[in-house]
């Protein structure tokens, strides 16, 4: 099967400092790919390369090629906003606008498609059901979303991303600021969404990666150390650094 | 990034607003050069060095240049110690609520219009100066300078206080822990860190004082002369702004008299811009201070 994302020899700089070093990688359609590695290794940077969220950072520079299907993302002709409609993203901390729950779900949709007003309530219901939030909030859709708990807010952020109907969902440590119950809910959600949706998730929790990922990418100090099926990496890693990391949570690269 | 590739009404509006905002100063500068050009042709450098001004005959700007200089000097000499002393007390001694009340009052006072200060000056200050120094006329360089010092006091004080407070608390703690007493701490640990901000505050005050028109016009006496001896500040005089305010209406757009006033405007413009740019390069070009007193700003 043809991979969805292909990175060819990607290096990335912020000013003088090199954050990614010659990374070549493919990400498969319909799978859950988890990027693991110690903090500061460049996990989030790789993730943000896939929807060009790094562009605004001062001193940003990239060499190599990133393909989404057949499109070279860092070509001049790429319409960044169309890319981001196809490649949704959920951040570490839920970012909720000071608006109602209803308006938060529709935040992207409202500004992207002008003639779908009659579908709005249906979209809200479907996406909130998809993130298992519907039963909790269906009676207070017009209340401020800021009153929700952190875990609810994060699921709302996912619903908001899903409402745009992306093909890919990037998740940047989506559970790191959440309580265990919400974490479980989101992990379970990721399993349910994969298949139709390609999911790339950055996490520093190995058990989480083990639980939800089909493929695992191990990054250390901007270098790709190992990439493979989840069960292979966790049971039988080929690289010494991976073994060390899995055992000691440390790596010398 | 100049996204002119595709025409989009929103962006076109943003760009044109932006162009208006950044070009206004330049347009005014060019206007002043063009309008004053004939007087420099007519009088040559004598315009700057001449001390006689008779409309229709001769135009010499020196008395006004002197007036602006001396009045600004008096204003800063009185305002600076008051502003610094009260900034030190406010920032280093007073409790937070008292400090906020004082700063709020200062901000409100900074908004009192020049014409109201002029009214205060003409009714109270001129009489006070006249009686105190036993003068024939209370209108003088000194009166104008004092009035200006009161006007710029809130600005200089508020900005100096901001500068003092921006020095990290650790510096003070460290100095106190080493056994310095409080005044030594302020001199050796706090002031060095705040000096740039204070310099910026003073330069801003100078710029304000030079450009203030109405209040000066009402208390300076409006006589184009350099006093004898030149340091006799208890005589009536003229500043660039008071001259422009007094004669602007009658000369608008007409003849050498107008060109000469535009020339005065150009001198004032260059002086104020020079000071503003020095201030900006000391405090940093990204500082928005003095436009609105801002509280905090997150960098992205």
């Amino acid at each position, binding site marked *: 099967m043809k991979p969805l994302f292909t990175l060819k020899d990607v290096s990335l700089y912020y000013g003088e400092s090199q954050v990614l070093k010659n990374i070549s990688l493919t990400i498969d359609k319909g799978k859950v790919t988890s990027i693991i590695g110690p903090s500061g290794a460049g996990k989030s940077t790789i993730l943000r390369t896939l*929807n060009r969220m790094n562009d605004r950072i001062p001193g940003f520079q990239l060499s190599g090629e990133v393909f989404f299907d057949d499109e070279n993302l860092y070509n001049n002709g790429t319409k960044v906003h169309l890319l*981001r409609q196809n490649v949704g993203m959920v*951040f570490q*901390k839920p*970012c909720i*606008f000071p608006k109602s729950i209803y308006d938060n779900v529709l*935040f*992207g949709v409202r500004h*992207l498609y002008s003639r779908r007003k009659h579908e709005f309530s249906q979209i809200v219901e479907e996406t909130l059901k998809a993130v298992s939030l519907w039963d909790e909030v269906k009676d207070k859709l017009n209340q401020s979303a800021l009153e929700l708990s952190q875990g609810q807010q994060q699921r709302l952020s996912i619903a*908001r991303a899903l409402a*745009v109907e992306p093909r890919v969902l990037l998740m940047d440590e989506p559970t790191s600021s959440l309580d265990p119950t919400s974490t479980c809910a989101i992990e379970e959600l990721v399993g349910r969404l994969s298949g139709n949706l390609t999911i790339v998730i950055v996490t520093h929790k190995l058990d989480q990666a083990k639980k939800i990922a089909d493929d695992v990418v191990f990054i250390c100090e901007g270098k790709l150390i190992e990439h493979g099926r989840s069960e292979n990496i966790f049971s039988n890693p080929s690289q010494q650094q991976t073994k060390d990391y899995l055992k000691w949570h440390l790596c010398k690269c | *990034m100049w996204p002119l590739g595709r025409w989009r009404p929103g*962006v076109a509006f943003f*760009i*044109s*607003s*932006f162009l*208006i*905002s*950044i070009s206004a*100063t330049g347009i*005014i500068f060019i206007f*002043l050069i063009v309008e004053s050009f004939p007087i420099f042709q007519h009088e040559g450098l004598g315009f700057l060095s001449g001390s006689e001004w008779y409309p229709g005959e001769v135009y010499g700007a020196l008395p006004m240049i002197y007036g602006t200089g001396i009045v600004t000097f008096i204003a800063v000499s009185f305002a600076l*110690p008051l502003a610094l*002393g*009260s900034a*030190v007390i406010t920032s280093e001694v007073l409790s937070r609520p008292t400090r906020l009340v*004082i700063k709020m009052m200062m901000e*409100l*006072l900074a*908004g*009192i*219009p*020049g*014409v*109201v200060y*002029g009214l*205060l000056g003409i*009714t*109270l200050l001129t009489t006070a100066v006249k009686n105190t120094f036993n003068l024939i006329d209370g209108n003088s360089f000194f009166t104008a300078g004092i009035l200006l010092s*009161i006007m710029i*006091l809130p600005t200089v004080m508020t900005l100096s206080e901001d500068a003092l407070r921006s020095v990290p608390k650790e510096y003070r703690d460290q100095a106190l822990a080493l056994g310095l*007493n409080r*005044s030594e701490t302020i001199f050796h640990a706090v002031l060095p860190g705040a000096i740039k901000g204070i310099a910026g505050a003073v330069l801003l005050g100078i710029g304000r004082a*030079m*450009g*203030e*028109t*109405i209040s000066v016009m009402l208390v300076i006496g409006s006589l184009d002369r350099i006093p004898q001896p030149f340091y006799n500040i208890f005589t009536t005089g003229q500043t660039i702004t008071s001259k422009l305010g007094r004669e*602007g209406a009658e000369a*608008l757009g007409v003849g050498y008299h107008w060109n000469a006033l535009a020339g005065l*405007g150009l001198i004032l413009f260059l002086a104020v*811009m020079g000071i503003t*740019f020095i201030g900006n390069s000391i405090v940093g*070009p*990204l500082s*928005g201070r003095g*436009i*609105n007193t801002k509280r905090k700003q997150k*960098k992205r």
Partner: protein
Amino acid sequence: MRRDLKEVIFFSACIITTVTAISLLFIILSAILVRGLPAINLEFLTTESKEFGQNGGILYQTMGTFILIGMAGILAFPIALGSAVYQTEYLSLSLRGTADLLVYALNAVPTIIFGLFGYMFFGVFLKLGVSWLTGSFILAIMVLPTVLVSIKEAIESIPFKYLEAGLALGLTQERLVRAVIIPQSIHGMVTGLLLGLARAAGETAAIMFTATTFSGVLLPASFREPVTSLQTHILILAQEAINPRALTNAWGAALVLVALIMLMSLGSMLIRATITHEAER
């Protein structure tokens, strides 16, 4: 001990200057109040001035000030907003410092120069003459930096995560401006506008020979007529300082003007103090 002596001298000096500064400011406020209050009554506020301001009230002067600053606000606001959005969202990083510098330069231009320039440009070149519209144009340029910087600071303080969240959903830059940047910086627009109006209301030099006339006009019937204003009214009466009745009315007008300006500044301070971004909780 010498060190202790220095400490005492230093703090005494500081306290003396503080007391002087604060009492000066109290004297000013109380002078305005004490002298202005006797002039103020309902009649003073609601009738037209008579006998060159010696008698009667300040109704049309007050309205003139409102007309001048209202139009100045209407003219300055969209330009300030557009420019603030452009400077924060479109302009390349390397040019932002220069742009800021030019805006601060405009803020520093002495107001009398705005008067000279504005008369020649709007009055003569655009043929608006000595009129309230000329005055409003001049005041609009004058307060532009105040409004602009306030909006710009509000935009810059929008938490970055809001922008990221919008961008990650695939909003274009224009949509982001409409969906996030403008709604999240409304408080900056209101405070900026209030500060700008307050500054315009206190300005005399820029409008005294370009937009106003002393007496004989009530409300302008067209764009090309002058108005009277509180600022210029005070100026003219102040110059008749020997006439006690004129002076009383000058103080009354001054108190009204100062109250007006302080209300606007207080309003902006209150908004600034109460609004914090939800995200900063």
